[in-house]
């Protein structure tokens, strides 16, 4: 039977390509994910470890007591220690004839065994000499023998003075720039310990970075480590750590990244989705392949193949495809990462990037790919064994799926949907994401299990829309649900990705809206500019007009004091708002009539008496749920009680009665544009940046974060969507193979090539479109409930559907469906009518 399986794979290699492609993508994604973490660590290790890469043991300071010469002396006598290098660093100013600047100065190791420098030319510096890194040497045109002057880094008012009064040194060597993070990106100098000591002062003291030890040959590292630790403790440095270079790198990297593990977990979750989708595609493709081979399998049974043999034959096929695809996937992932790393290495900031291919990542990728493929083929393999020998003698009609198993699955699915929905609802009601998440997952899995219940009817319903397109349209609609199980499985694979994408979009949009309503409550207007200009002058109408001239400013209004009152025991100006200026308010539901005054939250007042120049009036207080809201009344009332003169500069209310400039900006300004606008305004109006605040600026910053997150998440989910589309193309091309005769008949009867192509395209679009439609609906619902669960405790969540993005998702699905149909349709159309009719 192995022969049969091999022959299958060899002869129908093309049919297995799509299976393999799906597996390759999932395995590649998974492996790359696992490599990201290792490569990040390796890259950082490459950088972090640069300063102590040759040490046998590295001592670093404890939290309270920095290491010093005393510690070095203490460990020098420990058993096994051959050499001690107290690595010191300080910040120095340097000058040459033409140039000056600041850089890092590090001492060199006392012995070659601990030396970390990579000499390009020259010799290690002795007294009165320094080594300089190649980048700096090139920039300053330094060669071995050049002269430099040095001074303590923080002591000099200007680097230029260094050249006149510094300590001279001769360049003895050019070395490769260190990738040590504390050295990188600045001029690097290396000199003797004495040279460093001479250059240190109180403001830029010598820092002991570490103490590095070289052990005598043949010393047991663990024993030496213990001895050194004991010596340190005895000397009073109990909290200092002793590590091997590798351990030290790991420890420092862990301190640096802290979060990469979490990143890996998040990435793994996406990889898992991709693997799941790919398993679905594989399972579906195999069942189609089995269905098409019913006659052949029956023939094998007729001539005496047992059920077990048939099943094994199918599983061997799966194993073959799984192994080949997984290997390709892993290789692809390594290639991709190598490419990315190579690009990073080419850039000065990240040249320390290093590729790490952890055996675990390779193993996990391979095992997952193979196991997934074989598991996915289990059900189709079982279906293959149910083929009766007699089927070989019957006309090849579609074999219907066994009913009992289907019912069990449906029952299980419905139970999951109902149970999950209840839990999800509870989570949303209580605004508890931890309850909602499993509920959502449960109900979604349930829905996927009963996809056969709603996918085919929906495809039929939507297919009715294609009727006006004539025969090809009608046929496409019918063909799309010809095999409901197959259609459901194909659509389901796509459904998963789309639902998750849309869920993220809706969640993001809802969070955005919720945040915006919070913001509009916090800030009265898009942008407000308050306080005095830099020259001490007040903002005036001219400033408002200037502001209006900037791109992006939609409206501007200067609001001024219309009376005075006492709020929270403080005299303050009450600003007057003209009806035109009311348009500037974020919260357009706020109204100002003759009897009300708006006050920020927390005044504790019911009424407020405002005094004008010609009288005073008692107002009803309406509190606004914002802390930064100035007292406001309508300009008409202000006229009534008389607009008073501006407050005197020495009065209590002076600063709370200064005119403010309120702006509204175009809604579509992005964060960058807003930040630019802010600095332009600051310059143009002669105020400081911090005086310009408001909802728009916070909104932009927040939106930018959401957008980036959404982009990343969508990108990650795109892998799953792509795999699903491979599934669509695959199902279609296999169906096309099955329908060769029918296609030929239609061609003979007068269906043009283009109509045939169109028909298949329509079929693919129908399946992809309906999957996207269902996914969008489900995703919106889940996103909405998810947002409610996550944000419900902070703010009132109002459902908000990102229609534009939904439309984009649908459009992408339709286009992708079209693309998926290109290959199968081309093959179908290439066939001449006679050829098709001949393959009886």
């Amino acid at each position, binding site marked *: 039977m192995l022969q049969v399986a091999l022959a299958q794979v060899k002869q129908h290699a093309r049919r297995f390509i799509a299976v393999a492609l799906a597996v390759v993508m999932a395995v590649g994604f998974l492996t790359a994910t696992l490599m990201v973490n290792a490569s990040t660590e390796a890259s950082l290790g490459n950088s972090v470890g640069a300063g102590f890469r040759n040490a046998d043991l590295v001592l670093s300071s404890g939290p309270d007591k920095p290491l010093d010469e005393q510690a070095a002396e203490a460990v020098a006598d420990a058993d096994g220690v051959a050499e001690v290098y107290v690595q010191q660093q300080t910040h120095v100013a340097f000058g040459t004839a033409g140039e000056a600047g600041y850089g890092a100065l590090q001492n060199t190791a006392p012995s070659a065994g601990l030396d970390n420098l990579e000499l390009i030319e020259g010799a290690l510096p002795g007294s009165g000499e320094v080594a300089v890194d190649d980048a700096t040497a090139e920039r300053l045109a330094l060669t071995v023998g050049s002269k430099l002057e040095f001074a303590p880094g923080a002591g000099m008012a200007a680097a230029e003075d260094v050249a006149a009064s510094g300590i001279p040194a001769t360049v003895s060597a050019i070395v490769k720039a260190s990738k040590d993070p504390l050295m990188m990106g600045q001029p690097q100098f290396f000199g003797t310990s004495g040279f460093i000591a001479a250059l240190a002062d109180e403001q830029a003291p010598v820092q002991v970075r570490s103490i590095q030890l070289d052990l005598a040959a043949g010393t047991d590292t663990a024993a030496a480590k213990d001895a050194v630790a004991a010596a340190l403790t005895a000397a009073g440095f109990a909290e200092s750590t002793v590590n091997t270079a590798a351990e030290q790198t790991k420890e420092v990297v862990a301190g640096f990244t802290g979060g990469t593990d979490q990143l890996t977990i998040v990435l793994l979750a996406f990889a898992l989705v991709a693997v799941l989708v790919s398993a679905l595609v594989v399972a579906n493709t195999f069942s189609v392949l089995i269905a098409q081979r019913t006659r052949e399998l029956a023939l094998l049974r007729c001539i005496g193949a047992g059920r077990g043999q048939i099943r094994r034959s199918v599983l061997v096929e799966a194993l073959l495809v799984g192994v080949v695809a997984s290997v390709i996937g892993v290789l692809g992932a390594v290639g991709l990462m190598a490419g990315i790393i190579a690009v990073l290495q080419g850039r000065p900031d990240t040249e320390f990037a290093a590729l790490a291919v952890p055996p675990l990542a390779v193993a996990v990728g391979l095992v997952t790919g193979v196991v997934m493929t074989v598991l996915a083929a289990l059900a189709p393999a079982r279906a293959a064994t149910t083929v009766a020998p007699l089927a070989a003698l019957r006309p090849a009609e579609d074999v219907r799926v066994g009913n009992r198993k289907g019912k069990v699955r449906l029952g299980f699915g419905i139970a999951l949907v109902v149970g999950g929905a209840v839990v999800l609802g509870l989570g949303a009601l209580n605004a508890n994401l931890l309850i909602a998440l499993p509920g959502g997952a449960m109900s979604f899995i349930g829905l996927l299990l009963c996809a056969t219940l709603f996918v085919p009817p929906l495809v039929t319903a939507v297919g009715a829309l294609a009727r006006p397109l004539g025969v090809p349209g009608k*046929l496409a609609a019918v*063909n799309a649900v010809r095999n409901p199980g197959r259609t459901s499985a194909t659509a389901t694979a796509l459904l998963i990705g789309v639902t998750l994408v849309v869920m993220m979009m809706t969640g993001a949009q809802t969070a955005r809206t919720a945040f915006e309503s919070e913001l509009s409550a916090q800030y009265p207007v898009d942008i407000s500019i308050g306080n005095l200009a830099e020259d001490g002058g007040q903002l005036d109408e001219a400033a408002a007009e200037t502001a209006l001239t900037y791109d992006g400013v939609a409206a501007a209004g200067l609001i001024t004091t219309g009376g005075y009152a006492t709020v929270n025991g403080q005299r303050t100006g009450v600003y007057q708002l003209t009806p035109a200026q009311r348009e500037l308010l974020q919260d357009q539901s706020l109204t100002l009539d003759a009897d009300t005054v708006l006050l920020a939250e927390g005044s504790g007042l019911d009424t407020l008496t405002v005094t004008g120049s010609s009288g005073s009036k008692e107002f009803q207080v309406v509190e606004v749920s914002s802390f930064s809201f100035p007292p406001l009344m309508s300009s008409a009332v202000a006229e009534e009680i008389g607009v008073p003169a501006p407050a005197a500069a020495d009065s209590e209310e002076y600063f709370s009665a200064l005119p403010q400039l309120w702006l509204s900006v175009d809604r579509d300004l992005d964060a960058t544009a807003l930040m630019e606008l802010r600095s332009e305004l600051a310059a143009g109006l002669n105020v400081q940046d911090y005086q310009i605040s408001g909802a728009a600026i916070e909104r932009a910053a927040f939106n930018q974060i959401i957008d980036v997150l959404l982009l990343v998440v969508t990108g990650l989910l795109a892998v799953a969507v792509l795999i699903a589309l491979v599934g669509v193309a695959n199902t279609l091309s296999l169906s096309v193979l099955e329908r060769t005769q*029918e296609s030929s008949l*239609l061609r003979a009867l*007068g269906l043009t090539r283009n109509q045939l192509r169109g028909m298949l395209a329509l079929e693919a679009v129908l399946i992809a479109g309906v999957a996207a439609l269902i996914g969008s609906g489900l995703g919106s619902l889940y996103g909405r409930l998810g947002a409610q669960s996550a944000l419900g405790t902070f703010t009132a969540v109002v459902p908000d559907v990102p229609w534009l993005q939904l439309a984009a998702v649908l459009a992408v699905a339709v286009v992708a469906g079209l693309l998926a149909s290109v290959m199968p349709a081309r093959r179908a159309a290439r066939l001449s009518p006679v050829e098709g*009719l001949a393959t009886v």
Partner: protein
Amino acid sequence: MTTSTEQSLASGAPNGSGNSTAAAATQALNKTYGTGDTRVHALKNVDVAFQSGKFTAIMGPSGSGKSTLMHCLAGLDTADSGKIWIGGTEITALNDNQLTKLRRERVGFVFQAFNLVSTLTAEQNITLPIALAGGTVDKEWFRYVTSTLGLADRLTHRPHELSGGQQQRVAVARALLTRPDVIFGDEPTGNLDSKVGAEVLSLLRRSATEMGQSIIMVTHDPVAASYADRVVLMNDGALVGELERPGTEQILAALAKLGA
């Protein structure tokens, strides 16, 4: 269209009516399959004309090129050289789209098997070529054809709910409905028992006689061929003779001579 070819062939048409346009005709038609050792000369310089309004049968041993000739005539396949006319239009010069249009408007087919689209009802199958052409069905003609064929109460059935004979009759109805220049049948009764086969054949016979429908049918069955006005004999890719309104005996004798 009157061409020199047709005139030369018309003389070979024993049934008179030499001035009527041929339903289909070929001139010096050649067709080969494969290359080198496996090269097969399926059609060798075939010159033939099929009269309008007549029922012609093509006979010959297996592998003699009958199906190939018919596929070329119907515009389903392309010849290597030579010319083909359908109802006066030279189709050898047409591109794929034009050929497709010609097929759905001017040619009808009845195959041996796989005649119907399984997802469509009998009625939809019958009107399929017209639907493809975006035309409107002549209701009266439709009723006449379907009732003549005894399909009136089977129109909403799908192919798998019809017997083999009924399926073939649906195919015949589909071919007749467009009143094509010519109907091609490749062993249309090959899968039917003799009673149902006779039913379909007499139907074809009647549509030629009563409706003036041109029909070209490939068959191995002398009984089937005896329904035809004329039997064209093929052997080894070439025309080797013809019989006018032959009886079954006559046909058997002619075939025996070919060694079939």
